[in-house]
C-alpha cells in the first residue's frame, strides 16, 4: 500500500467500524491530496507568439475526497486502533459508529483506546444502506456464479432501477430482507440453519475447527455416501417417474447406522448441500410470496467462497426452476461498514455524489476456492481494501441510450474470451516499460520521478498478474478496465498527466496548420469536401499515443504529419463502410438540430480533424456539443485544453468564433478520465444539455470510445462511430489490416 502524499483528516464522525465475526471492517473518509495537471492560457499580448508554447502547464495539488474500506482479521484490532488513533485529528464529536457482533465485543477496547464513545448502529440498516450504495455506484458490482465455465463469475450490467430486491444474509443464521426503496426495507423472514450451523455442526462431525477448512473438506467430499438419494429409494427405476435419481431424498439418510464410518469430507459435503439447499428453498419461497426475482446473497457463508456460491446457485436454480437468479456482490464483505459510514455521514449526504472505484487502491475480488488458487488465498485472507473516490460531479446515463438497462459499454468481455484476454494482457505488459519511461520523462525536474515511475511499473505489473490469474478481480475484464487501471495507478504515484507536454506541443503545431487546412477544404466542391472532412477526422485519429504502432512512428519520425497520416489510411471500401448512407443523409435530409461529439486525441485529431468537421456542421445550421474528458488520459484532449484550443481557433476563424459566442458550439466535460467511454456514467451537465438542445446526432470518435467501447451501443438517434484501427491483432480479428477504417453510420429503427 502506498499511503504517502495523503493527508488524513479522520474525524471520528467519519470513522466507522463494522466488526463481524472474525474479520473487522473499517470504513473511513479521508481527503487525498494528489497532483493534477492544469493548463492556463498565456497572455499573448505583445509577445512573439511564434516561439512561445501555446499554453502554460502546471502541476497543482488538489484535494479530493476518498472513502476507504479496510478489512482485517480481528487479531489485528489493537494495531488497527493504534493506527486510527495516530491519524485522528479534530475530534469534535466523541462518537464512533460501529455495527455487527464485534461492536459489542470490542466496545470497551475501542472506547478505552480511542477515548471515544461507541455508537452501535443496527446491523441490517447498515447492510442495506451499504448494499444500495454499491449497487448504485460500482459498475459490475453484481455477478452470477456459473459452473463449468471458463470464468466462474458472470458480471451483470447495473440496472438503472435497483429496487425492489431480496437480500439474503447468511451469517450464523439467515436473514431475509425485502428492500423496496432507499429507506424502506422489511425483515420478511429467516432461518436458523445458516453459516453457524455449517460451522458448528461441521466442527462436531469432523473435528475440524475452522470454517475455511470445513469448506475445503466439503469441496473434496462425496455427499452421495452420506445422503439418501432418490435412486437409493427407488432403485434403478426412478427414470420412469420423471425424477432425477440424484436428487437428495434425505440428507444424512445413509448415516442412520451406528456401525459405519463416514469420511470427514463426505460429511462436510453433505452438510454443505443440506444447508445450501435449505437456504435456497426458503429464499425462493419468500421471493415467490413477495413476487421478486432478484436475490442478492451475502454474509460470511458466501463471502468470496466459490464453493458456497455454487451450491446456493444450484439450489436457487432448482427450486425456482430458473425463474429467480442468485446474485452476489463483489464488495459484499464491506456492506455493513459502508452502511455504518453512510449512516454517520448522513448530514453530508454522500448519496448526492457519484463515486468511482479506485482500481489502484482496491484489492480485487479473490477467488478463494481452495483448489484453484491456494496462493492467493493466504495472500488476501487477512487484509483487503476498497477505495472509492468522490467525483466532483454526479454521473448519469446519456439520455439518448436506447435501453439503459441493457447497455453494455464494452465490446469484448475479456473474462469470457480467453484468447483476447491473453493478447491484451501481454500487450499491456509489453507497453508498460514505455509508459513508465514516459511518465518519468514527463517530470524532468522531479528528483524522485524515476523512483515513482518504477513503483508505478511494479504496481501495474502486479495488477496485470492478478488479472491473469483472476480475470474477474475487478468485475468484467475489458480493454477499458485495463486502461483505466493504468490511469489510476499513474495517478497513485503522482503522474497525473504524463502526456501534458506532448499534447501541448502537438496542439501548438496543429494550430499553425489550421487555417491552411480550412482554406483547402473551402476550395473543394460540396461532395468532395464532405469526403475530405471525414478523411481528415480519420487521419487525425491516427495520432494516438496509446497505440503502440503509432507511438513508435511518432517517436522515430518527427516529421510525421497530417498528410502522412492520410496516406496511411485504408482506401475505400473501408472495413466498416456506411459512408454512402451518411452522404445521402447529408444531401437529402434536413440539417441535424444538434450534434454531440465525443472527442479523442489532442493535436491534429481535435484541431485538424474535429474542428473543421464541427465547422461544417455549424454552417449547416446544426448546433454542436463538443464533449472532452474531465481529466487526462493518454494524449486525449481534456476539457480545459479544449477551451484553450477553441479560443485560439476562434481567433482565426469567424465561424467558430460566432458559434461560441452565440452558444451554438458548446464545450462540455464528460465527467470521465478514461480513454474509453461509458455512456451510462456521464456528467450530469452534459446530459442536461443534450436534452435541452434536442440532440439528434451522436458522433463517437477513436478506438477507445468507438471500438473497445460502444461499438454495439444502440442509441435513440442517428450516430456515427468512426475510428482507425491501430492495432494489427484487433484489425485481424475484425477481418482487416492495420490502419483499417471503421465508419459506422447508424439510424435507429423506427
Amino acid at each position, binding site marked *: 500500500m502506498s499511503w504517502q502524499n495523503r493527508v488524513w483528516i479522520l474525524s471520528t464522525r467519519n470513522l466507522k467500524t463494522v466488526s463481524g465475526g472474525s474479520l473487522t471492517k473499517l470504513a473511513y473518509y479521508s481527503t487525498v491530496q494528489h497532483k493534477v495537471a492544469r493548463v492556463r492560457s498565456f497572455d499573448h499580448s505583445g509577445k512573439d507568439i511564434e516561439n512561445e508554447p501555446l499554453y502554460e502547464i502546471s502541476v497543482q495539488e488538489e484535494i479530493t475526497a476518498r472513502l476507504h474500506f479496510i478489512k482485517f482479521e480481528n487479531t489485528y484490532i489493537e494495531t488497527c486502533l493504534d493506527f486510527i488513533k495516530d491519524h485522528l485529528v479534530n475530534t469534535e464529536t466523541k462518537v464512533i459508529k460501529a455495527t455487527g457482533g464485534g461492536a459489542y465485543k470490542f466496545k470497551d477496547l475501542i472506547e478505552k483506546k480511542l477515548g471515544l464513545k461507541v455508537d452501535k448502529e443496527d446491523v441490517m440498516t447498515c447492510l442495506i444502506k451499504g448494499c444500495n450504495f454499491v449497487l448504485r455506484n460500482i459498475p459490475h458490482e453484481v455477478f452470477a456464479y456459473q459452473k463449468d465455465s471458463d470464468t466462474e463469475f458472470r458480471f451483470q450490467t447495473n440496472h438503472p432501477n435497483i429496487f425492489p430486491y431480496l437480500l439474503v444474509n447468511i451469517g450464523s443464521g439467515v436473514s431475509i430482507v425485502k428492500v423496496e426503496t432507499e429507506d424502506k426495507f422489511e425483515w420478511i423472514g429467516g432461518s436458523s440453519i445458516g453459516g453457524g450451523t455449517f460451522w458448528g455442526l461441521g466442527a462436531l462431525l469432523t473435528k475440524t475447527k475452522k470454517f475455511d477448512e470445513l469448506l475445503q473438506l466439503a469441496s473434496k467430499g462425496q455427499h452421495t455416501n452420506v445422503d439418501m438419494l432418490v435412486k437409493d429409494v427407488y432403485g434403478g427405476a426412478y427414470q420412469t417417474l420423471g425424477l432425477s435419481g440424484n436428487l437428495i431424498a434425505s440428507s*444424512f439418510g445413509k448415516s442412520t447406522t451406528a456401525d459405519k464410518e463416514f469420511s470427514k469430507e463426505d460429511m462436510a459435503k453433505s452438510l454443505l448441500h443440506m444447508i445450501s439447499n435449505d437456504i435456497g428453498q426458503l429464499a425462493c419461497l419468500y421471493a415467490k410470496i413477495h413476487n421478486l426475482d432478484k436475490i442478492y446473497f451475502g454474509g460470511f457463508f458466501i463471502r468470496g467462497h466459490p464453493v458456497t456460491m455454487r451450491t446456493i446457485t444450484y439450489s436457487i436454480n432448482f427450486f425456482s426452476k430458473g425463474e429467480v437468479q442468485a446474485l452476489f456482490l463483489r464488495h459484499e464483505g464491506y456492506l455493513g461498514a459502508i452502511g455504518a459510514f453512510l449512516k454517520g455521514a448522513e448530514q453530508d449526504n454522500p448519496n448526492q455524489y457519484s463515486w468511482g472505484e479506485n482500481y489502484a487502491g482496491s484489492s480485487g475480488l479473490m477467488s478463494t476456492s481452495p483448489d484453484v488458487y491456494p496462493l492467493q488465498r493466504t495472500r488476501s485472507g487477512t487484509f483487503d481494501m476498497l477505495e472509492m473516490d468522490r467525483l466532483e460531479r454526479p454521473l448519469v446515463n446519456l439520455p439518448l441510450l436506447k435501453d439503459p438497462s441493457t447497455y453494455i459499454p464494452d465490446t469484448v468481455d475479456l473474462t469470457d474470451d480467453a484468447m483476447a484476454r491473453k493478447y491484451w494482457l501481454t500487450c499491456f505488459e509489453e507497453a508498460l516499460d514505455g509508459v513508465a519511461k514516459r511518465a518519468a520523462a514527463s517530470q524532468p525536474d522531479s528528483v524522485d520521478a524515476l523512483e515513482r515511475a518504477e513503483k508505478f511499473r511494479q504496481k501495474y505489473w502486479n495488477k496485470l498478474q492478478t488479472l491473469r490469474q483472476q480475470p474477474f478481480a475487478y468485475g468484467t475484464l475489458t480493454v477499458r478496465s485495463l486502461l483505466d487501471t493504468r490511469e489510476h495507478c499513474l495517478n497513485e504515484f503522482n503522474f497525473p498527466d504524463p502526456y501534458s507536454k506532448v499534447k501541448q506541443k502537438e496542439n501548438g503545431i496543429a494550430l499553425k496548420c489550421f487555417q491552411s487546412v480550412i482554406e483547402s477544404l473551402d476550395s473543394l466542391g460540396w461532395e468532395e469536401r464532405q469526403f475530405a472532412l471525414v478523411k481528415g477526422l480519420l487521419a487525425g485519429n491516427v495520432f494516438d499515443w496509446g497505440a503502440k504502432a503509432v507511438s513508435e512512428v511518432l517517436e522515430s519520425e518527427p516529421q510525421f504529419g497530417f498528410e502522412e497520416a492520410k496516406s496511411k489510411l485504408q482506401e475505400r471500401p473501408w472495413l466498416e463502410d456506411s459512408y454512402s448512407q451518411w452522404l445521402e443523409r447529408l444531401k437529402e435530409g434536413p440539417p441535424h438540430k444538434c450534434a454531440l461529439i465525443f472527442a479523442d486525441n489532442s493535436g491534429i485529431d481535435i484541431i485538424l480533424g474535429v474542428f473543421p468537421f464541427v465547422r461544417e456542421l455549424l454552417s449547416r445550421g446544426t448546433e454542436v456539443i463538443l464533449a472532452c474528458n474531465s481529466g487526462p488520459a493518454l494524449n486525449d484532449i481534456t476539457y480545459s485544453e479544449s477551451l484553450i484550443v477553441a479560443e485560439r481557433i476562434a481567433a482565426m476563424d469567424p465561424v467558430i468564433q460566432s458559434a461560441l459566442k452565440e452558444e451554438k458550439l458548446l464545450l462540455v466535460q464528460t465527467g470521465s478520465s478514461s480513454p474509453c467511454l461509458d455512456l451510462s456514467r456521464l456528467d450530469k451537465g452534459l446530459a442536461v444539455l443534450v436534452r435541452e438542445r434536442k440532440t439528434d446526432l451522436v458522433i463517437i470518435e477513436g478506438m477507445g470510445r468507438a471500438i473497445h467501447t460502444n461499438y454495439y451501443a444502440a442509441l435513440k438517434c442517428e450516430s456515427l462511430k468512426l475510428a482507425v484501427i491501430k492495432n494489427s491483432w484487433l484489425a485481424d480479428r475484425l477481418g482487416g489490416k492495420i490502419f483499417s477504417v471503421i465508419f459506422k453510420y447508424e439510424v435507429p429503427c423506427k
Partner: protein
Amino acid sequence: MGEERCPGVGDHDTGGNVAEELFPWFGLDIGGTLVKLVYFEPKDITAEEEEEEVENLKSIRKYLTSNVAYGSTGIRDVHLELKDLTLCGRKGNLHFIRFPTHDMPAFIQMGSEKHFSSLHTTLCATGGGAYKFEQDFRTMSDLELCKLDELDCLIKGVLYIDSVGFNGHSECYYFENPTDAERCRKLPFNLENPYPLLLVNIGSGVSILAVYSKENYKRVTGTSLGGGTFFGLCCLLTGCSTFEEALEMASHGDSTKVDKLVRDIYGGDYERFGLPGWAVASSFGNMMSKEKRDSVSKEDLAKATLITITNNIGSIARMCALNENINRVVFVGNFLRINTISMRLLAYALDYWSKGQLKALFLEHEGYFGAVGALLELLDSA
C-alpha cells in the same frame, strides 16, 4: 394419476363372487427407511370358507395376528389396531406392522418360503421400494407387485382412516394452547370438511402436498431435511443406533446450550425485526466455539438436532401454506411416531409465526397412510 389399472388386480376367477378380492388383504408401503404393512384380518369367516381356505393362508393369518414382533426388527403396533372394521362387506381387524427397509430381502425370502405366490393374490405396494424391489419380488418369490402412486395412496389412506375413526375416537387431533406449555392439551379435531389442506409427510425426507379435493391435489415441494436427517445426524453425533434411542436422548437434552439464540446475540429481543429473544438465531451456532463444544452432552446434541429439523419443516410448511393460501396443515409420517416434542413444537411454531392463522393437525396412524391407501386400491379395483 391412478388411471392405469394394475394388471391382475380384481380380474381373478373368483367363482361367482366377482365383487370380492381374494384374501389375504395386504397394503405395503416401502419407504427409504421403513416398510409399512397393513393387514386385514377377517373375523367373519364362515365355516364353509374356513374349510376352503388353503393352509398357507391360515398360517399367514396366524403368524401375523398371534405375534407382536417378527424376527428381530418387525413390530406390530398393537395400539393402532382398528377393530371391527367393515371393509368391502367384510368384518375384521386392521393390523399395522413395520420393519426396516434393509430387511426387505428377508421379507421377500419369507414370501418365497411361505409360497405366497400360490395364493393368487395381488400384492399392492407403494413407496419408492415398490420400484426398487419389484424385480426381487418377481425372481425370488414369483410375485408380481402392483405398484401404486405414493401420493395417491397417502391421500386415500388419510381420508379413509379419518372417516372410519380410531376405534370410536377421533383420528385427527390438535394441540390447544400450543404456545403455553402449562395449558397445552391434545384435543380431538373434526376433519369432516378437510379441504383444502396442506399435507406434510415426514418420512426419511419430507413431501408437502396441497389437497383441494379427493382427486385434486399437487405436490408443492419437499425437503431432504427429514426424519432420516434427524436420525442420521443423531447416529453420527451421539452414537445411538435406534430412532427410539435418539428420541429418548433428545427428551433429556437442552438445545439452548447448542443453539445460538436471538438473546445470545442481542441480549434480549431483537425489536427492529420483532424477533423474540428465545428464538433460535443459529442452529448449532454455539458449536462454533471449542469450549462450548466440550461442554455439551449427547442429549443436548440430540435435542438440538430434533429442534433444528422440526423448526425447519415447520417454517417450510408455513411458507407453503401461505403460498397456497391454506390454513390447515396436517402432519403425518413416521418421524412423528412417539415424538411429542416435535408435534408440540410444530403446533407452537405454526401458531406463533402465523400469529394464530395456521393450525397444525396430527393423525394417530402417523406413518401408515400410504400402506392403507395401497390396501384400499386393491379393494377398490375388485
